[in-house]
C-alpha cells in the first residue's frame, strides 16, 4: 500500500493518527556530500529529488537557511502555464507542465495541481495580434492554446467589465486550458518527502555563508551549521542569488525585486480559472480554501525585504477592480512579498558557471513556480552530466554575452520592466 | 530660430480650452450651507513661458530677468510675482513665467534672457490652469496629492511639482486664504477636471466663468 492513500488515511484515522511518521527526516549534516543543493525552495528540492530519481545520485543534501518552502515557493500566486512565445522558454515550460500533470502520483503527495485554464485578456488589436502570435507559436510546438474573441471570453467569465464604462475594453484573450494552479506548500513538501525517501538529507536552519575554494573548484560550503564538503554545488536560492553568487566571486545579470501578493477572505467558488488583465499587471485565481489569490506588478526598486508599499497595492487593486468590478467589496485578508531574482531579459538561467563544479539556477522573475518540476529535472541533469539538458541549453548564462536573449516582453536589460 | 512670434498681423481666433466641452458654470455636488466648499475657475489665455538657464548661466539669467521684468527668479519650491509676471520654480535651472497676454511675455523673454544664457520655450498652450479657492480646497487637493498643503508646510508662494490624481501638475499656493493654482497638462485636463469635481462633490463646488 502506498504510504499515502485513502486506505492509509482510514487506517490511521482509526488509530488516532498516531502512526504517521515525519514527512522528511531532520538529520544532522554529514561531513561531505557528493552534491550540495543550496536553497530548499521548490527548485532546490525538485533538483535533489530528480538527482536521486533520474540519476541515482543520492548522496545529496539540500541546505536551507530557514524552513523549507519559506521562500518564493511558499509565497507565490501558484499560476502554472506554458504559454510562452519564444521557443527557448516554451519548450522548457511545456516540459515542466507535462511533469506537473503526473506530479501528485509521482510524489505520492497531492500537490493539488488543478488544470482550470489560464486566460490572458487582450485590450487592443495590437495585443490580440501578439497573443495570436504566441498562441500560434505554442500550437506549432504542440502546446494547447485557444484564441478567444470578446464573446468567447464572456462565455467563460460573464462578470468581467464588458460595459461602456471600461477604460480598456476587452477585445479577446488567449486561453491555455491545461494551465492552472497548484498548492504551493504541498509542492515543496511533496518534493522534500520524495527526496528524503530516496535518501536525500534535508537540512533546515542551515545558511550557506561562504564557499571553500581550491582553484576553480568548490570543495565545500561554510554554513551556520559548520563546513560541509562537497563534490558539486547547485545553487537555487532565487531572490538571494546575487548574495550567494558573490560568495563565490560571481557577478550576475540579476537584480532582486519585491513582488507582493494578496489573498482575500475565503469565499464560496467565484472564479474558476486563472484570469490575467492585459491593460495593466494583474492576475487572479481562487484557492481551494476559497481565498482569491491575486497579484500584479513588482514594487519597482531593488529589495530584499519581503514586503512592499502601498502604491503597488493600490495599483494592483485598481487593475483588479477594473477587470472585475464585483471585487470591490471583497476584502483583502493578507498581503505579503517575495524577493524575486529578476534577470536582465526576464527569462531564467539554468546553467554551468565559470566555476567548474558550481551550477546556477536563477533569474526566475515572476514565473518560476510553474517551472519547479521542469527546473529540477534539467538542473539535476546539468549537475549530474556536467552539461545542459536540451531544454535548458537556451537558458545559459552565456546568452547575455552572445546576444541570444530570451526577452518575451522586448523590454531590454531593465529588470523592473520584465 | 525665432518662431513666427513676430506679432502676427491677422486677428487671432480666440483660444480654445480643453475644458470647453465640459465646463458649464454653476453649482454642483452636495448643497453646502454657506456656499460651495470649492470654487473653480479657468485661467485661460495666459502666456506660460518656460525659461531654462543653460549650464553656468543661472546668475546672469537672474540678473537679466530682474532687469527686464523686475522679477527675481525664485528658488526651489517657491513662486515670485513682479509687475504683471509671476514666476514659478519648476526644477533645477527651470522656471515657468506667466502673464496675462498672448505673445508679449515670450518676446520679452527672448530678447532679455536668450543673450544671458536662457532657453525660452513657449508652453502657453500645453498647460491648463485652474484656480481653486474656498474652505475645502486643501481637503480636495489632499485627495490627490501626497504633498503637505498645511500652511505650516506650504505657505503662500509655495510651489510644488507633484502628482495630483496621478497626473503631473504644478501647484502654486497663491496669496489669500486657500487659493491654489493648479497647472496640468492640456491633454489630461479633462481627466484632472473630473477628478477634482468628484473630490469636491461632497463639499459642493462652483464652476465659475
Amino acid at each position, binding site marked *: 500500500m502506498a504510504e499515502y492513500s485513502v486506505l492509509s488515511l482510514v487506517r490511521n484515522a482509526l488509530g488516532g493518527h498516531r502512526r504517521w511518521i515525519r514527512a522528511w527526516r531532520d538529520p544532522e549534516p554529514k561531513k561531505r556530500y557528493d552534491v550540495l543543493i543550496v536553497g530548499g525552495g521548490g527548485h532546490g528540492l525538485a533538483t535533489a529529488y530528480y538527482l536521486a530519481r533520474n540519476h541515482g545520485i543520492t548522496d545529496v543534501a539540500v541546505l536551507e537557511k530557514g524552513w523549507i518552502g519559506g521562500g518564493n515557493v511558499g509565497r507565490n500566486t501558484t499560476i502554472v502555464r506554458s504559454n510562452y512565445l519564444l521557443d527557448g522558454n516554451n519548450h522548457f515550460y511545456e516540459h515542466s507542465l507535462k511533469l506537473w500533470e503526473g506530479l501528485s502520483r509521482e510524489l505520492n503527495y497531492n500537490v493539488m495541481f488543478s488544470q482550470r485554464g489560464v486566460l490572458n485578456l487582450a485590450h487592443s488589436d495590437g495585443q490580440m495580434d501578439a497573443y495570436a502570435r504566441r498562441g500560434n507559436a505554442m500550437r506549432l510546438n504542440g502546446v494547447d492554446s485557444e484564441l478567444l474573441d470578446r464573446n468567447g471570453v464572456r462565455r467563460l467569465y460573464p462578470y468581467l467589465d464588458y460595459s461602456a464604462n471600461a477604460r480598456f475594453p476587452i477585445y479577446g484573450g488567449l486561453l491555455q486550458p491545461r494551465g492552472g494552479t497548484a498548492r504551493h506548500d504541498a509542492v515543496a513538501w511533496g518534493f522534500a518527502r520524495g527526496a528524503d525517501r530516496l535518501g536525500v538529507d534535508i537540512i533546515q536552519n542551515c545558511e550557506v555563508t561562504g564557499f571553500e575554494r581550491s582553484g576553480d573548484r568548490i570543495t565545500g560550503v561554510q554554513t551556520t551549521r559548520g563546513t560541509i564538503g562537497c563534490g558539486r554545488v547547485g545553487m537555487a536560492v532565487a531572490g*538571494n542569488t*546575487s*548574495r550567494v553568487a*558573490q560568495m563565490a566571486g560571481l*557577478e*550576475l*545579470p*540579476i*537584480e*532582486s525585486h519585491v513582488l507582493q501578493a494578496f489573498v482575500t477572505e475565503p469565499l464560496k467558488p467565484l472564479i474558476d480559472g486563472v484570469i490575467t488583465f492585459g491593460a495593466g499587471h494583474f492576475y487572479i485565481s481562487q484557492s481551494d480554501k476559497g481565498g482569491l489569490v491575486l497579484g500584479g506588478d513588482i514594487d*519597482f*526598486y*531593488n*529589495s*530584499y*525585504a519581503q514586503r512592499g*508599499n*502601498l*502604491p503597488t497595492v493600490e495599483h494592483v487593486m485598481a487593475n483588479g477592480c477594473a477587470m472585475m468590478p464585483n471585487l470591490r467589496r471583497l476584502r483583502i485578508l493578507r498581503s505579503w512579498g517575495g524577493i524575486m531574482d529578476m534577470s*536582465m531579459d526576464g527569462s531564467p538561467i539554468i546553467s554551468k558557471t565559470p566555476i567548474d563544479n558550481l551550477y546556477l539556477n536563477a533569474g526566475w522573475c515572476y514565473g518560476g513556480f510553474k517551472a519547479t518540476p521542469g527546473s529540477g529535472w534539467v538542473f539535476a541533469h546539468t549537475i549530474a552530466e556536467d552539461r545542459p539538458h536540451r531544454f535548458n541549453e537556451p537558458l545559459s548564462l552565456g546568452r*547575455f*554575452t552572445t546576444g541570444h536573449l530570451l526577452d518575451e516582453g522586448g523590454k531590454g*536589460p*531593465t529588470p*523592473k520592466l520584465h | 530660430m525665432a518662431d513666427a512670434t513676430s506679432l502676427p498681423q491677422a486677428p487671432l481666433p480666440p483660444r480654445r480650452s480643453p475644458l470647453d466641452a465640459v465646463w458649464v458654470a454653476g453649482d454642483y455636488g452636495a448643497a453646502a450651507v454657506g456656499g460651495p466648499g470649492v470654487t473653480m475657475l479657468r485661467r485661460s489665455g495666459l502666456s506660460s513661458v518656460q525659461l531654462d538657464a543653460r549650464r553656468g548661466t543661472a546668475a546672469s539669467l537672474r540678473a537679466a530677468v530682474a532687469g527686464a521684468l523686475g522679477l527675481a527668479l525664485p528658488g*526651489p*519650491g517657491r513662486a515670485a510675482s513682479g509687475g504683471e509676471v509671476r514666476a514659478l520654480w*519648476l*526644477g*533645477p535651472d*527651470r522656471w515657468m513665467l506667466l502673464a496675462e497676454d498672448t505673445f508679449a511675455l515670450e518676446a520679452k523673454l527672448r530678447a532679455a534672457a536668450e543673450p544671458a544664457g536662457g532657453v525660452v520655450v513657449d508652453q502657453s498652450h500645453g498647460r491648463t490652469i485652474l484656480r481653486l479657492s474656498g474652505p475645502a480646497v486643501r481637503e480636495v487637493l489632499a485627495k490627490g496629492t*501626497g*504633498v503637505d498643503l498645511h500652511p505650516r508646510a506650504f505657505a503662500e508662494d509655495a510651489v*510644488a*511639482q*507633484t*502628482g495630483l490624481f496621478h497626473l*503631473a501638475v504644478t501647484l502654486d499656493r497663491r496669496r489669500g486664504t486657500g487659493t491654489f493654482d493648479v497647472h496640468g497638462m492640456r491633454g489630461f485636463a479633462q481627466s484632472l477636471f473630473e477628478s477634482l469635481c468628484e473630490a469636491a462633490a461632497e463639499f459642493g463646488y462652483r464652476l465659475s466663468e
Partner: protein
Amino acid sequence: MIRIPCPYCGPRDHDEFSYAGDATKVRPADPAAATPEDWHRYVYLRDNPRGAHLEYWHHVQGCRAYVKVLRDTATHEVLAAGLPSDDLPFEDLEAGR
C-alpha cells in the same frame, strides 16, 4: 511608502519618482576604447547588494532631476540622497558591512 528627500523638492513619496537602478554602474567614458566585456558589465551585470545600495531615482512627477539615493535594500531605509555629482557615504558603509 519610501520617502525620498529630493535635494530640490524635499521629501516626497517614492511613487512620484521612477526608479533608475544601480548608480555604481559607470558607463564607459570612452566608448571607442571600451571592450565588449566593458559594455557587458555595464549593461548586464549588477552587484545587487543586500544592504546599502546606491541608486538613481528620477523625480519624474516633480523637478525631473535624477536623484542619487543611498538606500538599504533590506529595510528600505533611505540613508542619504543627493545629486548625481554628489559623493554619498557609500564606500564607508560598504567597508563597514
